[in-house]
């Protein structure tokens, strides 16, 4: 009996301390900033902060904080306040959190997101409450179809990541180019597609599959593994036996992907490997090692001095290595968002959901207002044709095709910026 009470009381005490500590911490924040007379704009930053994709959420959050630090959290006479919307990679929970942010936290404008399946129901809410939402990264083509179907979705202020097919075409072009120039020769144009069994990988395979077929390739196999799998010997043994000169795919499982690449060489797969997004998580090379040599990816590098400075500052401040495609892209898109806010303030003198929506419609969607101070792309812009995606292509949103050598990505495509030609793995 004594043990029972002792345990119960002690655990309860610890629990209470925890709650008090956290609530105290949270409650302390608003008092720091006197909310007296200043106007505030409440920005809802949406991302998976808990659950398996929590890493992305963390990088988004830190990048956004760094971007808002740049402008001292103010635009004109308005102070920016962030509320965090945890999508938990679950459409139902995401919708609930989003509606809470609108009705409870009085959010004025939404920003970013990661999971495509969250976007569809959340888009409905943004239309219902007329809350503009900027640059959610869900890629699925369903989003495009829905966006185009009804003008009410114009509150969904553009996608932060283009539809896969607009990016996958670069691989096809790069490879076809290498074939034509005799840098690479294949006995038969056979390709194996691979990926995780989820929305992102399947969408990618579908997009690149169609494009490869159009370029005369034959899909001889398609292999999917569940998220969380780290032993790829069985899948790779099969891929090896198919004997295709090319394997292409992506995985959003940051633990499995490097393991897959490592094991591909162990099993003796000699194909050229397109591994889209292998470099998404900063620590990838620690896990993949030299086996990643000659693997092809499409990822913006920390190319400019500004980009490198951002990367170093990020790492120094938060202790994790940022990835260009989540932390870097989020940083740029928050920058673009700030630019829209500044323009809105100039035009209307006030920041509200309505004025922001108006300005973004009138200036951003028409291509008048673009963002050129990014660290990854030379220009972020929209055009009537590209909507809801950004303009993709040379000089705009473009991921260079790179080939890894000793952990560094060397640009091999497009021609204008390439550092060297496609290299083939020895043997």
């Amino acid at each position, binding site marked *: 009996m004594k043990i029972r009470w002792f345990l119960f009381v002690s655990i309860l005490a610890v629990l209470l301390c925890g709650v008090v500590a956290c609530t105290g911490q949270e409650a302390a924040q608003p008092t720091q900033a006197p909310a007296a007379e200043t106007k505030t704009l409440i920005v809802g930053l949406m991302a998976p902060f808990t659950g398996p994709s929590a890493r992305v959420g963390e990088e988004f959050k830190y990048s956004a904080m760094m971007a808002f630090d740049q402008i001292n959290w103010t635009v004109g006479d308005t102070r920016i306040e962030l509320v965090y919307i945890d999508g938990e990679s679950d*459409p139902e929970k995401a*919708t609930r959190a989003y509606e809470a942010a*609108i009705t409870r936290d009085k959010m004025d404008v939404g920003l970013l997101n990661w999971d495509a399946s969250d976007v569809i129901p959340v888009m409905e809410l943004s239309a219902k409450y007329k809350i503009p939402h900027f640059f959610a990264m869900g890629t699925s083509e369903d989003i495009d179809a829905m966006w185009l179907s009804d003008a009410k979705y114009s509150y969904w202020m553009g996608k932060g990541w283009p539809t896969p097919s607009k990016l996958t075409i670069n691989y096809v072009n790069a490879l076809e180019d290498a074939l034509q120039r005799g840098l690479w020769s294949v006995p038969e144009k056979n390709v194996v597609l691979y990926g995780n*069994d989820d929305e992102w990988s399947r969408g990618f395979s579908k997009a690149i599959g169609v494009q490869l077929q159009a370029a005369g390739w034959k899909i001889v196999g398609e292999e*999917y593994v569940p998220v969380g799998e780290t032993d790829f010997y069985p899948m790779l043994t099969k891929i090896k036996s198919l004997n295709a000169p090319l394997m292409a795919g992506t995985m959003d499982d940051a633990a499995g992907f490097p393991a897959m690449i490592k094991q591909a060489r162990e099993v003796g797969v000699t194909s050229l490997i397109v591994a889209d997004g292998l470099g998404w998580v900063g620590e990838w090379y620690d896990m993949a090692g030299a086996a990643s040599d000659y693997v092809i990816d499409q990822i913006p590098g920390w190319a400019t001095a500004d980009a490198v400075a951002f990367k170093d500052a990020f790492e120094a401040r938060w202790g994790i290595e940022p990835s260009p495609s989540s932390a870097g892209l989020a940083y740029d898109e928050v920058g673009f968002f700030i630019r829209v806010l500044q323009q809105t303030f100039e035009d209307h003198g006030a920041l509200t959901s309505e004025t922001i929506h108006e300005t973004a419609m009138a200036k951003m969607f028409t291509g008048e207002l673009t963002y050129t101070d990014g660290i990854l792309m030379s220009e972020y812009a929209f055009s009537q044709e590209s909507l809801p995606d950004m303009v993709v292509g040379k000089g705009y949103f473009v991921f260079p095709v790179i080939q890894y050598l000793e952990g560094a990505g060397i640009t091999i495509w497009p021609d204008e910026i390439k550092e060297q030609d496609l290299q083939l793995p020895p043997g």
Partner: protein
Amino acid sequence: MESGLQHRPRTPPRRRSLLRAWLSAWGLSPVFVVGVALLALAPLWARDAYLQRLLVVSLYFGALAMTFDFTGGFINAVNFGFAGFVGLGAYVATLVVRNAELSAWVGLPAAALATGLVGFLTGLLTLPLRGIYVSLMSWFVGMTLMALAGALKDVTRGARGLVVPPMAEGITTLGYLYVLLVMAVALYLLLHRIIRSRAGLAFRAVGQNFDAACASGVDPTRYKLLNFTLSCACAGFLGGFYAHFVGIVTPAIMDTSYTMEVMTLSFIGGSGSLLGGVVASFLLIPIFDSLKYLMEYRLIIYGLMLILVMIFYPAGLYGLYQTAAQALRQRFQRR
């Protein structure tokens, strides 16, 4: 687990009025009536759209927990593939609406039918099994359903999921609340009616002591099948609602973590009580939603709470209610 049986003859029959006997036969306990009335009057006190959504979600999970308890709390077989059945219902409802272009009022019954059928087959599969193996078998069935939803990509579009149209043109959150309320009340009346009938006694007998039940002439096969089929059909019915409410179905909704969520509610609510899970759901979901800013701490609190309840109060909320009711009654009787 046996608590339900022990405490049944609560009030001496002679003091029971006819009305009360009738009410209790239909399961219309005061808690239930007040709860339904409160929900029905929701537009008066829950104007906030978020609050309304929270009510829908709490009711949805509560109804799932109730359905879950119908199997777990009575025939003592935990359907660990529960989320798979809910997801199957969601998919069937969606496909009926999308491909056959019928309305949701056809889709939901179709979902219930299809899930009930698969539930029946699962019941057949688990017949030779005992104890934990029943759970494992249903878990594998649930996971198979999830794997199929991913692999049959011509029908389900695989992991990319299906977009589901709203249940009716221009339906609001309140509209969904009323639809779900009607569904949940109907399910409750049905399940409660069955529990109170001979079948209910048989369920408990099968759940408590399989061999003794056989010996006393109860045909366990029939009752096990009946129970499984019904609870799966209910799960599918609710799943169909969910698909319309959320607007997208992906195989991810069949994940075991959802089974765990429902199971937790059902056990914290009190096994063998039907309504316990609903009460737990209305308590826990709003609480944890309001603790959202705690991020990971919230999950730690959740886990610790589950641990504490299991160690110190495994009878759950229903047990608490019974103890309190007992104490009150004794007080009154003494006076």
